[in-house]
């Protein structure tokens, strides 16, 4: 064991290496089949979250026990309660990001023993980062000799590590680092240290190219219509040299520039790819799910369709050149960032093989395209949508609506969606809803008025639907499995922006209340963060519930199985125990309420040979288990629950699986409430136990 400290300008690198012999793992690796590994964030670069393992199956899932666990409290200067990572397991070693420092750890996948740890102390740059904490994961690359781990720090630097030692690879970039605030075809303002741009997702590696997107602060209450732009770049995984860049906001003369009226492409920012990128290595094509432009709910300073905002873009792996694109939402007004990895699927439609890409979304549409041509598999006609009345806003009069498959979660709010356990509850819910503007998908935001409406009541918008965990895909049966929140209500109202807060005409808010700048995930939460700004007291507190019960009726959260050959939902089930607040409600005593599922947006699924596996993201206390959450397994053919195992806290990162020395493991990140981050590995008891 030894420790090493290296001074590198203002950035301090601390790398502790606890090296044990990896010889047995390397020897094992020479004979292992790839299906037993998890070498990329989503299992592979096709975004499937699928491994055809079956040692853990319906007959024994409930027998799972904890093989090992590791708390992440000490991988940063404070504990983290929002651990969202999915580890990798490749070549006999498990790798993960962990803790408020976003350290990288290497573990023995059978025992959880720490092999090495790497951490970057970024000082003010890390503290000012828009996306802090441990992030979602990392990438692995090998040419058969070298093995490398790549990840992006909170301060937006791409780090390349030797997978065997955890040390930076000196030949990559500058001493193992590419400063992502440079080489970006833009000057990051106000400066490299505090300029708003970062990333919490995992980089993706295909062939010899490592690709990274960009993320920003929460976009509901931006300080300015101007911001840095979220371009996507590919780098040489051997040298760190930039190979290509794709301008997600076109520059003058580039395709799509004219979809930004009045020169708004010049100053508008964001429009990054903050979630996972998918790649078809054989076709040499990369699929970029692009988020919203600056200002989630008000587009009055960026008239036009705003390509490539909320657009699925296909680019060439070698050059970054655009091959095709499809804008899912014209002129974004609902924060419908494309939020998860595109799923690459080889399917059969009308007896013809099709190389497809399926995109889960917050709005609950699964958009399916031919991934070579970009042509929709089933028609997506432009349909008229409501045009709003917010002063200065520009509206698209139509949006593309997939004809197949049908929406798999609620993406609008109507009276029929409201709670209906009793007529009295429905009436009270109607009274609350009457203060808002209601409507189907793409009902635009309103200006918030005290006399009403306070805003537009939406579902399938900012939270989703399907958010960052995305879906899973079974390449054998051509079925997508996807979790969605079916009750995540978002009231979207706009208020004139106080000039001392923002230069936009309108930002998100509620009439009669002080404007509150909302912070992004992990912002000001990681190591080295500054203190938050002062805030004036508010005057009233209104909850969008009825006596603590959800405003809308169950199911609150679902898992859907969608057959891509037919474009049909095969089954849909509520996922998650009925929340305590519903199960214990005096008002509902004596009523027989089937399992409702839970209101949450961050459940990731895993698919194996026979099972769909997903944890609960809310805590419950039931007769069957103490306060905690369950990791549940469903028969993937029917959706029937076949087993469950207790977790001490909710699933906060998507589960993964691997097999080593004849044993299958499932690893899941848990955290939340009183429970700080922890990776837990489950396996079956050894024979004879």
């Amino acid at each position, binding site marked *: 064991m030894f420790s090493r400290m290296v001074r590198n300008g203002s950035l301090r690198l601390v790398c502790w290496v606890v090296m044990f012999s990896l010889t047995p793992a390397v020897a094992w690796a020479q004979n292992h089949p790839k299906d037993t590994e998890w070498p990329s964030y989503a299992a592979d670069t096709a975004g499937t979250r699928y491994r055809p393992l079956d040692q853990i199956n319906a007959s024994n899932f409930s027998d799972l026990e904890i093989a090992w666990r590791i708390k992440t409290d000490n991988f940063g200067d*404070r*504990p983290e*309660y929002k651990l969202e990572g999915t580890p990798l397991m490749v070549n006999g070693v498990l790798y993960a990001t962990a803790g408020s420092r976003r350290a990288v750890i290497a573990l023995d996948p059978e025992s959880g023993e720490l092999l090495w740890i790497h951490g970057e102390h970024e000082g003010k740059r890390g503290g000012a980062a828009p996306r802090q904490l441990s992030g979602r994961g990392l990438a692995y690359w090998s040419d058969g000799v070298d093995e490398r781990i790549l990840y992006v720090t909170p301060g937006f630097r791409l780090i390349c590590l030797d997978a065997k030692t955890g040390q930076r690879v000196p030949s990559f970039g500058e001493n193992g680092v590419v400063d992502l605030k440079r080489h970006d075809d833009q000057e990051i303002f106000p400066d490299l240290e505090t300029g708003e741009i970062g990333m919490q997702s995992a980089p993706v590696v295909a062939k010899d190219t490592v690709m990274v997107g960009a993320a920003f602060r*929460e976009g509901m209450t931006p300080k300015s219509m101007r911001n840095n732009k979220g371009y996507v770049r590919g780098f040489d995984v051997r040298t760190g040299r930039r190979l290509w860049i794709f301008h997600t906001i076109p520059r003058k003369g580039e395709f799509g520039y004219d979809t930004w009226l009045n020169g708004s492409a010049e100053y508008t920012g964001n429009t990054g790819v903050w979630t996972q990128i998918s790649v078809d290595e054989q076709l040499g094509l990369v699929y970029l799910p692009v988020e919203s432009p600056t200002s989630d709910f008000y587009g009055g300073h960026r008239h036009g369709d705003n390509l490539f905002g909320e657009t699925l873009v296909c680019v060439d792996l070698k050059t970054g050149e655009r091959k095709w694109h499809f804008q899912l939402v014209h002129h974004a007004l609902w924060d419908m960032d494309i939020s998860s990895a595109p799923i690459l699927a080889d399917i059969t439609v009308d007896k013809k093989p099709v190389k497809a890409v399926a995109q889960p979304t917050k709005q609950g549409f699964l958009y399916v395209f031919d991934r070579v041509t970009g042509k929709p598999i089933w028609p997506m006609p432009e349909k008229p949508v409501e045009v709003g009345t917010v002063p200065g806003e520009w509206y698209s009069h139509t949006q593309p609506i997939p004809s197949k498959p049908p929406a798999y979660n609620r993406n609008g709010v109507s009276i029929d969606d409201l709670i209906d356990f009793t007529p009295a509850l429905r009436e009270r819910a109607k009274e609350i809803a009457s203060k808002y503007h209601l409507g189907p998908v793409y009902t635009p935001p309103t200006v918030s008025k005290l006399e009403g409406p306070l805003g537009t009541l939406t579902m399938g918008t900012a*939270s989703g639907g399907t958010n960052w965990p995305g879906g899973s895909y079974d390449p054998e049966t051509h079925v997508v499995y996807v979790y969605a929140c079916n009750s995540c209500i978002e009231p979207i109202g706009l208020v004139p922006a106080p000039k001392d807060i923002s230069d936009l005409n309108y930002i998100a808010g509620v009439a009669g*209340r*002080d404007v*509150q*700048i*909302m*912070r*992004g*995930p*992990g*912002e*000001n*939460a990681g190591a080295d*963060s*500054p*203190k*938050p*700004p*002062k*805030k*004036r*007291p*508010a005057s009233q*507190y*209104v*909850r*969008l*519930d009825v006596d*603590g*019960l*959800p405003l809308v009726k169950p199911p609150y959260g679902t898992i859907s199985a969608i057959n891509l050959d037919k474009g049909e939902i095969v089954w849909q089930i509520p996922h998650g125990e009925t*929340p*305590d*607040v*519903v199960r*214990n409600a005096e008002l509902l005593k004596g009523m027989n309420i089937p399992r409702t599922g*839970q*209101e*949450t947006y961050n459940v990731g699924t895993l698919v194996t040979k026979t099972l769909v596996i997903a944890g609960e993201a*809310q*805590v*419950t*206390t039931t007769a069957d288990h*103490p*306060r905690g959450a369950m990791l549940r397994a469903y028969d993937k053919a029917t959706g029937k629950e076949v087993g469950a195992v207790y977790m001490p806290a909710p699933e906060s990162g998507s589960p993964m699986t691997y097999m080593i020395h004849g044993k299958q493991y499932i690893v899941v990140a848990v955290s*939340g*409430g*009183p429970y700080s981050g922890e990776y837990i590995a489950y396996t079956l008891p050894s024979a004879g136990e």
Partner: protein
Amino acid sequence: MKISWLGVAVIVSSFCFLRAQAPAETRSVWDGVYTEEQAKRGEEVYQKECAACHGDMLTGGESAPPLTGGAFQANWNGLSLSDLFDRIRKTMPQSKPGRLTRQQDADVLAFLLNINKFPAGKTELYRQSEMLKEIRFEAKKPAKN
């Protein structure tokens, strides 16, 4: 029957010892464990120090969980109030944990109880974690005896 007085003494003293060691959880959040005045002070602290992440309506956001409603209450159900106090004291505000005084933390906790519709009482919430151990966080109102 022959009684061993030594044995009785051991049993009695053991019982007394166990009683002394047992957690003295005699109250719950339904027993009026904070005052309205304290909750008002807590509201001011909350809006200044906490609302940027948890929202001015305590409904949370992507960056921080809600501090009101069913999911929040389920998270803490069955634990002691000292667990929630310690979570605030040791990890909040996230930008600089421990920056607030114990009194401010206790006031914020009183505000959270108030917003979650637990009743106010006549005495203020303790500002020491050890003393808060006796107060149980019960999401569901206990049935009257």
